């Protein structure tokens, strides 16, 4: 028999040092590049139609608006990568924002305490959802739908129509939402830090890679000795913590909170993540892509305003974009599998 050794096996020294796997990444980097391209085109087109869109204030608003969605998309990505979904994030933001509002109203609590409280509220919600999904073994969609209801109900019940106004929120907290360093607002910076840290974790940590492994093939992950349940739980806790944290930032940004803050955002978040190339079937995608997806959806919203298009179109566009993204994913995936199968046919048959 002959064993074929074509292809360069000496990938050790000469090959590019970076990249978990360049071939896989190349495909998905292509996705990120194409979204970035679409985003650039969209911005450029809108700028040509209305130059005010790229004024200092315009960009600031865009970044501020995108920050919270980016954060939520980062948290959601960790869950979706494990082939699960967290539909409760919108209501977690609402509950955390309201809890933080109640906590600071008329007091002089510090920024750190508010952020920690927000994250803590999110952690509790994430723990419940995550425990039900991972240890209860029930479908994520159903559980988190139920949690959406429960958290929303608790929030409404607690608020009873109250709202907290900016006048009651201490200044340092509001400054977090409106202040900036070197002209860059704090919120986008915070989102960027969380994004970079999560990206690094998912790429360079064993437990980060295990999230991909779980989403790619859950049975194989069990056989490989990966603590699947604990990892899924951790993903939900992370998503919850980020959502709670985002709730605290919501308070800082808007000053005013009512019970139905971020109501219905879960679908926007899921759309952003999927548009950004994180497959709803798990195992692939990066948080950078998800963040780009969030930026794209936010930008579309702003563009509609700038171009004076009826804002009612935004929902329909988000849905259409989501369908387009998963459709393209599917086609690319089929093509890639076919291409790889051909390659392996050339490799394998040493007859």
């Amino acid at each position, binding site marked *: 028999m002959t064993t074929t050794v074509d292809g360069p096996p000496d990938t050790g*020294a000469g090959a590019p040092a970076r990249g978990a796997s360049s071939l896989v990444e190349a495909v998905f980097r292509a996705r990120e590049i194409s979204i970035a391209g679409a985003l650039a085109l969209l911005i450029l087109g809108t700028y040509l139609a209305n130059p005010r869109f790229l004024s200092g204030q315009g960009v600031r608003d865009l970044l501020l608006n995108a920050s919270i969605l980016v954060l939520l998309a980062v948290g959601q990505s960790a869950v979706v990568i494990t082939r699960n979904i967290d539909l409760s994030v919108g209501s977690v933001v609402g509950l955390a924002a309201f809890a933080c509002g109640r906590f600071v109203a008329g007091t002089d609590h510090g920024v750190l305490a508010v952020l920690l409280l927000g994250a803590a509220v999110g952690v509790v919600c994430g723990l419940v959802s995550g425990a039900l999904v991972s240890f209860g073994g029930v479908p994520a969609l159903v559980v988190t739908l139920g949690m959406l209801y429960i958290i929303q109900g608790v929030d409404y019940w607690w608020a009873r129509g109250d709202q907290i106004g900016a006048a009651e929120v201490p200044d340092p907290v509001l400054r977090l939402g409106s202040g900036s360093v070197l002209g860059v607002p704090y919120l986008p910076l915070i989102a960027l830090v969380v994004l970079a840290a999560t990206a690094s974790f998912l790429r360079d940590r064993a437990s980060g890679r295990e999230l991909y492994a779980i989403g790619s093939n859950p049975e194989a992950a069990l056989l490989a*000795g990966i603590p699947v349940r604990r990892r899924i739980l951790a993903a939900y806790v992370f998503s919850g913590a980020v959502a709670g944290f985002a709730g605290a930032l919501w308070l800082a940004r808007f000053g005013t909170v009512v019970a139905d803050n971020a109501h219905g955002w879960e679908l926007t978040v899921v759309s952003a993540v999927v548009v950004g190339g994180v497959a709803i079937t798990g195992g692939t995608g990066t948080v950078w892509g998800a963040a780009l997806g969030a930026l794209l959806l936010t930008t579309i919203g702003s563009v509609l305003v700038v171009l004076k298009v009826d804002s009612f179109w935004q929902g329909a566009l988000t849905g259409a974009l989501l369908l387009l993204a998963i459709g393209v994913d599917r086609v690319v995936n089929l093509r890639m599998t076919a291409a790889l199968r051909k390659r*392996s046919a050339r490799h394998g048959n040493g007859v």
Partner: protein
Amino acid sequence: MNQPAEDPPPAPAPAAPVLALRNVSKSFGAVRALHEVSLTLRPGEVHALAGENGAGKSTLIKTLAGVHRPDGGQLLLDGAPVAFHGPADARDAGIAVIYQEPALFPDLSIAENIFMGRQPRRRLGRIDHRAVRGATAALMRRLGVGLTPDRPARGLSIADQQIVEIAKALSFDARVLIMDEPTAALTGAETARLFSVVRTLRDEGAAVLFISHRLDEIFELCGRVTTLRDGRLIASEPLAGLTADALVRRMVGRDLDDLYPKQDATVGEVALSVRRLTREGAFRDVSFEVRRGEIVALAGLVGAGRTEVAQAVFGVDRADAGEVRVDGTVLRPGSPTAAMAAGLALVPEDRRQRGLVMEMSIERNIGLTGLGELRRHGLVRRALERDRAADWALRLRLTYHRLADAVGVLSGGNQQKVVLAKWLATGPSVLVVDEPTRGIDVGTKAEVHRLLSASAADGLAVLMISSDLPEVIGMADRVLVMREGRLVAELPRGSATEETVLAAAAGVGGRAAP
């Protein structure tokens, strides 16, 4: 047996056992899967595990792999008792299991698949991606294969997936390699490559436990064999001096004189006629006929396009060109419904995914192909459905508790009988069977052969795809051989031998007549 090191052997001293089971028992509810079974694995040996389906082989493997915990008895690692609390424990002890269909992460690269959970780290616990890829490349060189570390596992052939699993075993210096029917889906060349890798590992001092339904492979590769029957240890002995018949006797507990009970049948008119059938990337210009009363085998290596032809004939895959006729009626391409209406039936290779709805009852599975006939005023007649199922269960000597039980609880052989019943119940004129006896025990195998033979004698046209050469030779009136998507030979019963079929399938020796 207790102190093997002190035995004074004639040959080089057998090494101390690396892994052993001593009087291990394991039950699932009321079922005794293993009853006081002992097994000893030594470094540098390839040890076969033989037995029919349901003999307890899978349970034994899973016990060694840390998936099951034994109810009684001991697991000894280097002579000391151990308890595995999960697959990770077994892996840490240097035990690697390669399953028939490896479970890889399709979205991750080969390198990541191999090192998942054990990646080399840099500072601050970050994964050293470069080291992971370098180590993978080194493993691939050692195994003599040209798989690129970076390519994703998606789309790898089963043989390559097994290579990845073996590389994984090497990467943590596994001392025990357990291979559960690794060759079931491999071509001859792939099997040969796998065997050479296994021999290399053996010579490097690994202990290999090898499970296969193919006796020739056991004799070719292994030094010792342990035989299980009904969860009990029958024998553990060297293969040298053992005949295939003796081994089969140990496995089934009786003689199997008529494994291939081919009856002579009068050949009638053409029932299935395939003309220049083509599906791009799978097969080209395939033409043949099957007559009533005939069993025609479609032989060839895995990947030669046989299953693809069967699926295109039946219409679950759409052919790009060509024509299929059943009893003179031209079939609409890509329509299983049309094929069934014309009298065609397909027993697919993958019983669990394609042949049966595992959680549905026996009667409903059998009824699924006959919903049209079972209907009156649009409603399914349940009594008729049950009668029909009971009738076929009796004819096929199905072993079951109740017809309302899910087929999933039946043994593999009985499941295959349900698939056959489901299709024979449609009263087909052409039956296409794809690997009809794969993974079923020797006893049921003979029953399936008897059934096929009797059905052909009753005027059914049978097209049988099989990778089991003795089955092809034993059962077929004519053998068609495919290679690389083309029909390359047609051998009548008299001239079809394992050698001629294999030569045509592999494309070696004299070119067989088309």
